[in-house]
């Protein structure tokens, strides 16, 4: 079954998504989401390679591939977060 996740793209990456601030990706997990973004929008690859964080329903994930993404999940791509 196709599950389209809506992903919000932050401003400096919109050049890679034809200016769109939100794109749809066929994904039910974080791994599928990141793979789908790289396939559909190759311009995002440099940032994806540098690292991103993803906010799913207000909680931030970096690496956990199999975090589920529901149809109605809010998904926001962020620059990779780093702390001190």
């Amino acid at each position: 079954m196709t599950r389209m996740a809506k992903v919000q793209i932050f401003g400096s990456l919109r050049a890679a998504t034809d200016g769109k601030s939100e794109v749809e990706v066929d994904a039910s997990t974080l791994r599928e989401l990141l793979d789908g973004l790289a396939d559909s929008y190759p311009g995002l690859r440099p940032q994806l390679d540098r690292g991103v964080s993803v906010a799913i329903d207000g909680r931030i994930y970096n690496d956990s591939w199999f975090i589920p993404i529901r149809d109605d999940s809010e998904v926001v791509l962020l620059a990779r977060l780093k702390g001190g």
Partner: protein
Amino acid sequence: MALDSKTDTRPQQFKVVGTRPLRPDGIDKVTGRARFGADMSAPGMLVGLVLRSPHPHARIRSIDTSAAEALTGVHAVVTRADFAPPADPGVADVLDNCMAGDKALYDGHAVAAVAAISGKVARQALKLIKVDYQPLPHVTDVDAAMAPDAPALHEGRADETVPAGMSPNVMARHEFGHGDIDAGLSQADRVLERSYRTEATHQGYIEPHACLATMAPDGQADLWCCTQGHYMVRNTCAAILGIEQGQLRVTASEIGGGFGGKTTVFLEPVALKLSQKSGRPVKMVMSRAEVLRATGPTASSSIDVRIGMTRDGRITAGFAELRYQGGAYPGSPVDMGSMSAFAPYDLENVRTVGFDVVTNRPKQAAYRAPGAPMAAFAVESAIDELARGFGLDPLDVRLHNAAREGTKASYGPTYPAIGLEATLRTAKDHPHWSAPLGPNQGRGVACGFWFNFGGDTCVSLNITPDGTVTLSEGNPDIGGSRASMSMMAAEELGIPYDRVRTVIADTGSLGQNEVTDGSRVTFAVGLATIEAARAAKREMCKRAAQVWGIDEDAVIWEDGAARPAGPNAGQHPPMSLAEIAAIASNTGGPIAGHFEVNAEGAGVSFATHMVDTEVDPDTGAVKVLRYTVFQDAGKAVHPSYVEGQFQGGAVQGIGWALNEEYIYGEDGILQNPGFLDYRIPVASDLPMIDTVILEIPNPGHPYGVRGVGETSIVPPLAAVANSVSDAAGVRMTSLPISPPKLLAAIRSGGS
């Protein structure tokens, strides 16, 4: 791992968590018994020293080490030529920062190192190394580095986000936000445009970097060092040296402060290389001047803000352009500053644009909520000026615009339940807010936001034969984690705190652990500790069931003992942890629990700070009179440590606001590499920092814990500046607010 719905958000009843037991490292530290980075020795140990560039920017034409190598007592000399290009490009800049390649990029950049039988011989050897430098033009100011004709540090390293035509020193551009700024500004009764500047400040940890490295001919290596993350040290050094991670065992010493600055390596790969070359253990200890010249201060910043507000205090739009220089390599925290600048507010129209800029300064390192304090200084100063201009209460204006559950954050996501409003209401009701002020005195408030992190975490909990508990974790204790882990284990097991001892294991004893950063340890390691204790409890219930001859499902753990439960369990007296431990050999062997997790999904954090200052109109000196921190801790495991985190962040922020700055001369040389000229606040400069801990449980943690280590440094820059501006009657937009700067502003009637 998903951590949603980990805990019931109703207050829980705790017996150990929330109390204030004595800290386990206290006696060792006050008696001098604690072993820090420089306190370890090994037989046959050599002394390692680094030769550093006297130029801010220079091509290294050649390095002649022959005379140094010929000196009696010198066992090894290394330069960049001794390091193969790392297979992992991710550590290329780290290596270049530890040992310069073709160019020295800042005053103090390492260009060679020696290992000798004594410090005296090593210093003589450094003088015998001949470096042929070709000095190059330099730039140390962020705005100057962005000029099209600025001296370029690197060519062609800008990433794809940087528009064509910008200075080659601009490495990246970040943009966040939503809505329509111009439309929002058009609805405002006043639009304020201001430019703000902050200087680079150092984390100011008291303990300099130090390590002892041993690399044997068979490839096995051991490293003792002061660090916030010995697994990070292992992985980074292994990548730089081209060895397997499993062959390098790193042990973390006690740590005399880090605050983010010890989340990377400086000496460690060099010490390992010197040991490999000499065949002897090598110890390296930085001087204070080396710490200031060549480790990571935070970024300096230049920020333009445009905010619109209606006369009743509603913010209609917020825009900021943030320019951070992060030293000689890409990676300033301007992305974090851009995301956090307006994060406390519920705004329909908000946008931030950040530029990451390189200059001829040491590579910045993380500093407590990296990037956020400068951004908060700019935005919170502008909001304060607008509020006061309309005659509005600055706390009311913040409450009017505060982000709440359901607010779309300025960096994108929608907030779950958050604690900002609670900190603001508590601040407004606090006696500090209504206390009278005298002549030349002012009061300022500011809010702050930080993300908080989780990450890879391992904990191993072992039940000893006498019924005490040892707990191994992999994160250096910089904020009291041994105490808080022991407390959470004791709470979960139902035993007294003093029956648990927590140790920091070396890299050979546990799996991968993320660095002690991002306010992650009490949250993530605490979560793993609780789960490890629960695993041990399950095993102990199983052992008791075996003894009683009943099904293990018919045994529960309560008040430190296994107890029969359920209709068919029968009547058996409870078996305590000690009783089960005593017969462990008879019931299957030693009992332990362990837990490994990537603890993602940590919750965000907010704070509000309030500060009174008094300005001497004749000298421009500022005295901090009263300071109160209001912050949500989720659940304070050991409230004294939480208060300490709140106080420490406030004090570091006061230093950043009033005194501390990296001062570079026209020659590009750091002018104040010592604690006499780089002045951090000391106890006699400060009042008692009062704290109010709010406890709004974090649903992502079994006990509701939220990280508290970083948020406390975000508001104070702005809170102090707002207070001084109130006291002096002039708006201060440039930090630090040093006496000469304030005096000049007072005399000119505005900054």
